């Protein structure tokens, strides 16, 4: 069976150890996590996890079922119709060409978010694929540090 990349959202009680329950499930059953983000859902006692994973159809089905089975899980959303975005922060030395970096960021709907004495920080939020292109294009300005945020997604 063919491996596919899937974005899975989990709505779960915002309580201690729920992150461990979710991540422990992946570790214990040998499922792969490419990225995982979690934050509380405003005005509720719930949290939303966005998990990017890879596996064949059978594995993806098991993942959603096992996630659903956790007592703390309210809902698992696993579908094609997701708008997904990821954020990245890249730190460059101030010695690099600022205008070139800015132009690159513009091309990816991003910008310079901080400029200090020794370094500037650029931010881009886009689809994961585009983030990867951005990171590879940024290589020529010798990035000092790259921080990716992991995918967040919402149903269309």
């Amino acid at each position, binding site marked *: 069976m063919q491996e596919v990349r899937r974005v899975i959202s989990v709505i*779960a*009680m915002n309580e*201690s*150890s729920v992150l*461990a*329950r979710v991540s*422990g499930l992946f570790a*214990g059953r040998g499922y792969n996590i490419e990225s995982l983000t979690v934050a509380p859902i405003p005005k509720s006692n719930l949290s939303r996890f966005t998990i990017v994973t890879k596996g064949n159809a*059978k594995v993806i*089905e*098991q993942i959603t*079922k*096992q996630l*659903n*089975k956790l*007592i*703390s*899980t*309210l809902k698992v959303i696993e579908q094609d119709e997701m708008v997904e975005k990821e954020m990245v922060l890249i730190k460059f030395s101030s010695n690099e060409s600022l205008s070139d970096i800015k132009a690159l960021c513009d091309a990816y709907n991003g910008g310079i978010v901080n400029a200090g004495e020794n370094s500037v920080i650029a931010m881009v939020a886009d689809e994961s694929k585009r983030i990867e292109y951005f990171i590879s294009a940024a290589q020529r300005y010798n990035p000092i540090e790259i921080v990716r945020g992991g995918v967040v997604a919402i149903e269309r």
Partner: protein
Amino acid sequence: MKMSGAQMVCEALIAEGVTTVFGYPGGAIMNIYDAIYKQDGFEHILTRHEQAAVHAADGYARATGKVGVAMVTSGPGFTNAVTGIATAFTDSIPLVVISGQVPLSLIGTDGFQEIDAVGISRPCTKHNYLVNSLEELPRILKEAFYIASSGRPGPVLVDVPKDITAEMGEFIYPKEVHIPTYKPSYKGNDRQIKKAVEAIMESKKPLLYLGGGVILSNAGELVREFANLTQIPAVETLMARGIMGYDNPLLLGMPGMHGNYSSNMAMSETDLIISLGARFDDRVTGKLSEFAKYADIIHVDIDPANIGKIVDVDYPIVGSVADVLEKMTSLLKHHVNPDRYQPWREILTRYNELHPLKYEDSGEVLKPQWVIQRVGELVGKDAIITSDVGQHQMWAAQFYPFDRPRQWINSGGLGTMGFGFPAAMGAKRGVPDKVVINFTGDGSILMNMQELVTASEYKIPVINIILNNHFLGMVRQWQTFFYDKRYSQTDLSFQPNFKALAEACGGIGYDVTTKKEFDEALADAIKQNRVCFMNVIISRFENVLPMVPAGGALYNMLLEHKDK
């Protein structure tokens, strides 16, 4: 009413109808033990090891269908309990385990006897809690019992910090639970059920594949009715022995690695598997690509994650066996034609005549199969049978005439040596009017032999029949078959004096080498009504047969082993 957290724990147990708790005290749980001292709503049985406490609660739950309760202290008390919890988890047994924890202020400081109990038990509990305040304690206890016993049952751990057990507060035990994220479904989808029923009516070679879920959902009677109505033959997994009744002509036997010939051939040749509360364990399916190649599969399971996990399913039905089967039965009534399956039944009967389950008895040395059959003849349905893990377990599953659900108690999923004796104690406490017999091995029994003391003290007359082959027999068998007889670390020729051991702990010991001695010993053990070790010397190199070698196809069974 105002009371301490410790008292709340006791009151909650009483409110849940708990009458027996198995446990072992220690620093972090002393407040609860103090409250236990002051109450008389339930009995506490002091096992001599925490693992045994959990197995005993487990055996109690399996024998009675109620939630079993065990109590342990923090740190080593809890870690000792983990094997028991995992055993119950793998077999979906409802337990509430209450563990002491260091005070909230010490959590995270590597305090004395601090261990992350919820962290360790997360993968082997259905759910677990660290109680964070006195306020939430009653709600958590209520939820624990509900979660343990509803849906697919399982163990729930409640880890209670010591300071919370000392704190005073108002006790209001909730009447109901509200867990918006947990809603097990029992009913089963009507459309799917209808389709499944149609498939049954079209099938020529249907087969009931019965698992432990039938027992957990108390659907034994319904299954017999269904089989009777449809005349569809059945196999019972290791967890399901007793559902059909040993003398039911529709029962083929047990499928899988040590299944009998007709069961495994039925699994291989059926055109429709009707799986009820079974989960296609690898010990049952053998090589998956060869498993049930001609069959469509109806899979009824309360846990959606079980469906489609191992095999592709044509008719998935999420629901309890009891609910779903009731609907199926009413749909099939007046419509099903049992004669339709007659040719299929005849094929299976022929398979059974071709290679019945058998063994060669001996006049010189006791055969384990004989011992098990003999117990069946002498006490039969009057007994509850538990077992440890190994050859004796398989022989018991193969040869004992099980007559009803909950008569057979064993660690099927985790295969925990040391389970049998404490589980038998729990079963006896739960069902005192039955004789409780534990079939065990000379290896397994030593893993919880300290319970002789518990059983003597509390007068729990469990009969331990040690089928003594002076080997870790099951491992030895694999070494014989697959490792050129290199008996690495399986020879148990060095032995304790089992008779003296039992006597030293207040029990009775018997040494048995002949059939006559066996009959006498069993009669005496039942009459004496005290815990005993029956040291039954059996033929050393007996093998469990048939055998499907690990990873092999079910239809390729070793039926005999001729020693070169």
